[in-house]
């Protein structure tokens, strides 16, 4: 944390603390509007959580294995046999272990209850590929975890439904949508939350999902590689923070967003931080504009990439660079641009015009998470290992 951040105990007698004036990433703005500072955010983690050495940034801070195989996706179809090879080679490279089971055993034990956090938003055009999730399930089972102790989850049942995960994943694997309807908070732990009032909203708390707070012992995070109209990118950090806590859309009110610093703070909340031991970014589809929900194929590049690591900040930093580069190649403005002329309130205009956006993006949330100790956010310090298989 930088000098503008302060931490103090609350009077509530829990693990809560305040964080105020998060490091302004406006320093990284190219030009344009000045963005408002976030109000104080109160974080209440689960009391008596013992931080795990496997928790973010995990066993290999700063290390990211990038596996590329152009045959992994052809005509929007993901090839599971190719994925298997990519994952096996990537996991061995990440851990230095000679065998695949030994590599997975670094993170998962047979007694674990494993949560696989997918990102189904944007389904079907860009979501965590069922083919990748199936291979992760196979790997977890190979370590000795029974199917009944594996749950694939996300917040929204209807997005899981559109993605078809229930049908496409093996029998015995749990598939959980935390919210089955508007305003459904039955799947959340009311003792674990982040509290902040951004815009005068009536509900100022965001609660952590019970499946994370209480049920699973390890989380494997499977985000997608996408531009995000508010956060700049949605990657490891956002898939965890905004995919585990409820009531997060309130952090955006056009044209402003407080995804920086809220995403990083949510990810640092225990036990989410300690349980998130491995991140496998699905870069089969690279959405370079219109995320997270676009279905417009013009802005979806079939990249055929997996990014594997234990450090979400390092992976998201590479994701950010990748999407920024693609936008530049396509003639789209920088993710960091904050030009008032780019803002539109028209969703359809946003979806079909890469120069338009709904919010001033906040990609600085990645660096802010790095300052919270969640990982390495400086590209020069990232141990990036690229493996081109085809």
């Amino acid at each position, binding site marked *: 944390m930088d000098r503008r951040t302060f931490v103090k105990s609350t009077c509530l007698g829990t693990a809560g603390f305040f964080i105020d004036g998060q490091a302004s990433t406006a320093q990284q703005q190219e030009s344009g509007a000045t963005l408002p500072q976030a109000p104080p955010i109160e974080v209440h983690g689960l009391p008596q959580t013992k931080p795990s050495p496997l928790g973010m940034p995990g066993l290999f801070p700063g290390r990211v294995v990038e596996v590329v195989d152009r045959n992994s996706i052809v005509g929007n179809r993901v090839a599971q046999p190719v994925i298997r090879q990519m994952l096996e080679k990537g996991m061995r490279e990440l851990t230095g272990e000679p065998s695949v089971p030994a590599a997975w055993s670094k993170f998962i034990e047979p007694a674990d209850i494993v949560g696989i956090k997918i990102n189904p938003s944007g389904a079907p055009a860009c979501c965590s590929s069922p083919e990748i999730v199936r291979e992760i399930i196979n790997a977890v089972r190979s370590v000795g975890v029974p199917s009944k102790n594996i749950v694939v989850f996300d917040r929204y049942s209807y997005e899981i439904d559109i993605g078809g995960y*229930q049908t496409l994943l093996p029998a015995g694997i749990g598939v959980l949508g935390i919210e*089955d309807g508007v305003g459904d908070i039955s799947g959340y732990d009311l003792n674990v939350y982040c509290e902040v009032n951004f815009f005068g909203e009536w509900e100022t708390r965001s609660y952590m999902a019970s499946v994370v707070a209480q049920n699973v012992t390890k989380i494997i995070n499977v985000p997608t590689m996408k531009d995000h109209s508010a956060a700049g990118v949605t990657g490891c950090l956002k898939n965890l923070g905004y995919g585990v806590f409820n009531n997060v859309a309130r952090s955006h009110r056009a044209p402003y967003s407080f995804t920086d610093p809220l995403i990083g703070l949510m990810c640092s909340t225990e036990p989410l931080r300690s349980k998130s031991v491995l991140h496998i970014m699905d870069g089969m589809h690279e959405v370079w504009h219109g995320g997270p929900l676009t*279905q417009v194929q013009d802005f979806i590049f079939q990249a055929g990439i997996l990014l594997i690591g234990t450090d979400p900040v390092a992976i998201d930093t590479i994701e950010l660079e990748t999407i920024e580069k693609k936008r530049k190649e396509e003639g789209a403005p920088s993710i960091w641009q904050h030009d008032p002329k780019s803002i539109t309130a028209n969703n359809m205009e946003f979806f079909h015009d890469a120069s338009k956006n709904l919010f001033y993006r906040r990609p600085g949330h990645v660096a802010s998470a790095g300052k919270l100790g969640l990982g390495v956010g400086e590209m020069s310090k990232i141990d990036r290992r690229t493996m081109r298989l085809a």
Partner: protein
Amino acid sequence: MQADKNSVASDATGDWPTLLHDNMRSGGMGLQNAHAPNRPRWQFRAGRSIRAAPVLRDKVLYVISVDGTLYAIDVVTGRSKFSFQAPKHVHSTPSLWASLILFGCDDGRVFALNCNSGTKVWEVRTGAEVWTSPIVWQKTVFFGSADAHFYAVEAETGKQRWTTDLGGKIYSSAAVADGKLFVGCGDGKLYCLDASSGKTVWSTATGNGIDSSPAVTNDLVLVGSEDFLIYALDAKTGTVRWKYQTGLGIVSSPALSDDIVVVGSKDGFVYALEIATGQLRWKTQVAEVVTAPPLIGAGFVCLQSGGLVALDMASGKMLWRAGLGGSVQSVPVLTSDAMYVASLDGEVYALQ
């Protein structure tokens, strides 16, 4: 092929006793006429999301919300006659048979209630959630479960007749015709089972899991797959007669009318194909994603995608669109004087 009389809708009564109208999951077969709705006759607020489709008999509309509440709604008044609370969430579309209403629950049970009182008559347990819609043929209830098993139980008692292990989770609702059951599976195969014994008559593999519910017509079975294709299979042998590729996966179930099959794709288009050849008649983009099944009225196709959409059956041109009725899997019920729609936001509408 002839479907079982016990659960086939009667043209005269306008009943709609099961998912996609009848035991062959035909999706309406063009029986009912309808026009663009002018106004709601009534609106019923369930209060929680509704994923399953409604069914109708004897002027009572049965609707289940995701939180597991079954409502029996008088279609004249729009008021609930009774309700039943299931122990867990419900995604299964109910089926009506004799005096029973049957549906699956996320706790793995299938319930049979008296459809006049809501009293439980029997229940059976499976090993995982039952999202499929039960189907009844010759006093036997058939349904698939996410535990990868397909079940047959006595309709009057719930006593198990047989069960068979398929290769993956079952979210596809079965169709039945001429003593054969047709059901898709998460292992990517379409299975034909002997309804008396549960033995596999044939199975045909597609390239990915099947969520879509098959429809049966004459000697063909039609079904969509997550591999982007719609298949027409020989009902006797499982041989692929033709297949047609769309832009993304298909979980929408096909609807049939005369010589045309209509199906939606996750690519956002609705496709109309000739049943005999698989040749494209028309395709129309109705939304960014289509997952709900279409149904076929007299000269038009209707489905819930974003809102309620009607297309001209001959050309595919948009006839009308209503902003209500968002859905992932729900299907309207169509009668001669009204259209009943259950939506993801928990509202039920009688439109006229």
